[in-house]
């Protein structure tokens, strides 16, 4: 298991916009923002020891049960991405967190992704408590992140906002 990163927010995930992520509008397609964010979720799960090996060894899986994305600015093919992750809440089976995607060299916010992730028993494919090794790691990250300001994009309700007359 890797050594836990103490950063608040977690700021270790980097990626590049692949050619196959571009759509007919000439920018990264909505679905591939979520592909990119899902890889940042793998980076988060790796911090907790519940990433690829966890599933490969048939110990367990993690399923996203809800997701919210804000698309703030376009990114193009080849753009470098920096994704930060802030833990917002957790319980015995779930973690609630938000990723922020930045253009890594220009610095602007490209998108955010708020997620609810649940631990799953491999055999039954039903929800199950986090394994013993993961829980202290989740608690430690929650402790490190609890004083971060809550991002404005967390807890949003979707709707068309109308200007007051």
């Amino acid at each position: 298991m890797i050594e836990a990163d103490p950063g608040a927010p977690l700021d270790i995930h980097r990626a590049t916009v692949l050619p196959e992520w571009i759509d007919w509008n000439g920018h990264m397609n909505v679905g591939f923002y979520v592909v990119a964010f899902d890889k940042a979720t793998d980076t988060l799960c790796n911090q907790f020891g519940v990433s690829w090996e966890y599933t490969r060894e048939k110990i367990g899986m993690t399923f996203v049960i809800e997701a919210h994305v804000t698309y703030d600015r376009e990114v193009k093919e080849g753009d470098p991405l920096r994704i930060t992750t802030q833990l917002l809440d957790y319980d015995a089976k779930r973690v609630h967190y938000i990723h922020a995607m930045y253009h890594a060299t220009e610095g602007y916010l490209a998108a955010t992704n708020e997620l609810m992730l649940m631990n799953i028993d491999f055999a039954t494919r039903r929800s199950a408590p986090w394994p013993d090794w993961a829980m202290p790691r989740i608690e430690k990250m929650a402790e490190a992140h609890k004083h971060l300001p809550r991002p404005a994009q967390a807890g949003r309700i979707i709707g068309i906002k109308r200007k007051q007359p």
Partner: protein
Amino acid sequence: MSVILPYEMPALVTTAPLDVHRSTVLPEWVDWNGHMNLAFYVTAFDQASGAFMRNIGLGRRYVDGKHGMTFVLETHVTYDREMKGGAPMRFTTQLLDRDAKRVHLFHEMFHADEGYLAATNETIVMNIDFASRKSAPWPQQAAERLEQVWQAHQHLPRPAKAGRVMGLKKK
């Protein structure tokens, strides 16, 4: 000023909800958990948004003719049940709100044979001017068709999963 589109409009479907889009879970959408990866639900739903847009006259010809584009601003997905590779999907789409440039849509994805609800997607889509890549009013024909769809959809009950705030519900 709104654009007038030079091409012929398709026959307008005003059934409420819109129930025309069908698709299949592609093998490349399946991840190491053996089910459709969360991102490809968004891709599948985006194609259902595309079907809604085609119905109001904003299909591929809209982009290929360099008249305009539509961009998703925000999206919220509930993952209700797993879908495996090859599973047939049926989508319904309810128009929840609209203004001069935007639509607020609510999609439901069902397993087309077994009938169960697999996921929902609430989304805001904005009309974009092709040259400036900035928001712009709906083209004239699209605005008229959108109003006809709205007349048909506005009295549908609001879906229980619309307007959700994410969080852990503590006992």
